[in-house]
């Protein structure tokens, strides 16, 4: 074995580290919250260590039961969900899922939700010193009556919840924004001023389907959140707009089902991406994407830095 070969082997064994608002990621591909559970199910079908990070389903202080009735509906090139943030509560997560995830070699990002400002703070506090890599503040879930999106559609409310959590948590703080607003840049600015370290764009868009045989709304919650390829152009537009105006790293999400979709997000200005609903039709997608990006860059002799924001520099 030549020294050169030995060096190559050594180098390729070194784990890549990407900094995203203070959080250290393994690569630029993550699960989207709510589409990967807490990792245990996917661990049976894929190697979790191929993820840049795992982003877990939204957690509240106490367990939430979620919505009654039909919760998912297929729509053109996508789906609606009205889960209503059913979750076992942050303490249960810490006791039952976190040890399992920590035994893996993977950064853990916790998506947190609350009905009130106080609940957000309490959940964030519980996660201090537990070994999680970052918090993703979900101020954008369209499927709960109080909290969630109510915080994400008003710049002043968004500011107050982000500031409150920022003051109580030492963890890198990502804030996940709602696309159900007229001006996403305005919200993004407020969230930045409140001390966010990165922005996740976008959560689902509010939508609705009617069952024409019964004449009633199909979903138990009447409305639901739209995700999948159908929302990708909207997500791209929002990432592009925010990247132009706000100086924070962006995590792009919404309708990614292939490397070319992910590349669009990078070119719009995202530094990393998350994959959600596409995993339901292609469960092994996230295992393939990091390698596909590597090959793409190698083939074109590009660095990822050259790709990120490319579309903004070219107009």
């Amino acid at each position: 074995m030549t020294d050169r070969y030995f060096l190559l082997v050594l180098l390729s064994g070194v784990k890549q580290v990407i900094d995203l608002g203070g959080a250290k990621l393994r690569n630029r591909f993550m699960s989207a919250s709510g589409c990967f559970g807490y990792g245990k199910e996917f661990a049976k079908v894929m190697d979790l260590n191929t993820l840049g990070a795992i982003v877990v389903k939204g957690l509240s202080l106490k367990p939430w039961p979620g919505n009654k009735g039909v919760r998912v509906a297929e729509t053109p090139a996508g789906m609606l969900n009205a889960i209503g943030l059913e979750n076992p509560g942050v303490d249960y997560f810490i006791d039952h899922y976190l040890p399992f995830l920590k035994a893996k070699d993977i950064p853990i990002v916790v998506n947190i939700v609350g009905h009130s400002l106080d609940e957000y703070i309490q959940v964030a506090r519980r996660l201090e010193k537990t070994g999680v890599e970052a918090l993703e503040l979900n101020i954008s879930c369209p499927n709960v009556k109080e909290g969630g999106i109510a915080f994400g559609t008003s710049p002043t409310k968004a500011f107050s919840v982000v500031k409150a959590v920022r003051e109580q948590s030492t963890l890198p703080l990502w804030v996940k924004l709602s696309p159900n607003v007229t001006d996403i840049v305005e919200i993004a600015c407020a969230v930045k001023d409140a001390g966010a370290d990165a922005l996740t764009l976008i959560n689902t868009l509010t939508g609705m389907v009617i069952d024409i045989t019964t004449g009633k709304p199909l979903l138990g919650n009447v409305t639901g959140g739209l995700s999948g390829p159908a929302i990708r152009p909207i997500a791209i537009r929002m990432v592009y707009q925010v990247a132009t105006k706000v100086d924070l790293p962006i995590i792009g999400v919404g309708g990614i089902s292939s490397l070319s979709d992910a590349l669009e997000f990078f070119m719009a200005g995202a530094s990393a991406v998350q994959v959600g609903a596409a995993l339901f039709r292609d469960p092994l997608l996230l295992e393939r994407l990091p390698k596909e990006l590597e090959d793409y860059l190698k083939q074109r002799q590009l660095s990822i830095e050259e790709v990120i924001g490319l579309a903004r520099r070219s107009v």
Partner: protein
Amino acid sequence: MNEYLLPVIEHKEIAPDIFSLYLKGNLKNYEPGQFVQVEVSESLEPFLRRPISICEIDKKGIRLVYRTKGRGTKLLANKLASRDQNNYGKTYLRIFGPLGHGFPIIGNKATLIGGGIGVPPLLGLAKKMWQQGMKITALLGFNTKENAILIDEFKNYAEVLIATLDGSLGHRGLVTELITDNATPVYACGPEALLRALERFNLTGYYSLERRMACGIGVCLGCNITVLTKDKKELRQRVCYDGPVFPLGFVKWGEAGD
């Protein structure tokens, strides 16, 4: 569970709008009652996979029996039907599975109760029970004789009694009218009305549920229901992951589902 891309080796309409499909291959550790997520389109439309029960697995391959109901299943049937018979083996289908938990097999006798498109997964169960030397009775209900499926195949393993709503085959009426006092344990699959009707009898056993699903692998919580434990505590369960088979009488109906 795993992802498989398998050649289609047979596709036949066995009753109006009901197709029997064979894929070449095997699924390790399959339990009767489990299902697979079938990709109906290689493009992004329709977006989600369709959950279909495994009817049986034998030397020939993996068998699914499905009814064309809406867009996705019709697309699948048209795609497979339009291929020349001689080209079977060159058409591939992507499935993910086996998913969920199947029927636990207990004791030395059983009554299988199936209604309509709920009948197919019970065939694999009947075969497995028969291989274990159990005494099996199969009560199968259909709308009419025309819709009746798989009867001769069940006869290889079980004593078979049929009910049709219009009386065109077997007993005229509901399949539940064929239930006898010593039917326990029962293994049921069929429309929700049938499963709920079984709870009015003094029976124990298992039933298999159907819910709208997105992921089918337990991560989206789209299919959650409440199940009662033996000491009457409420437990949230995913039909796709913790089910689709649950102990008879322990599902709290009417809060999540269609």
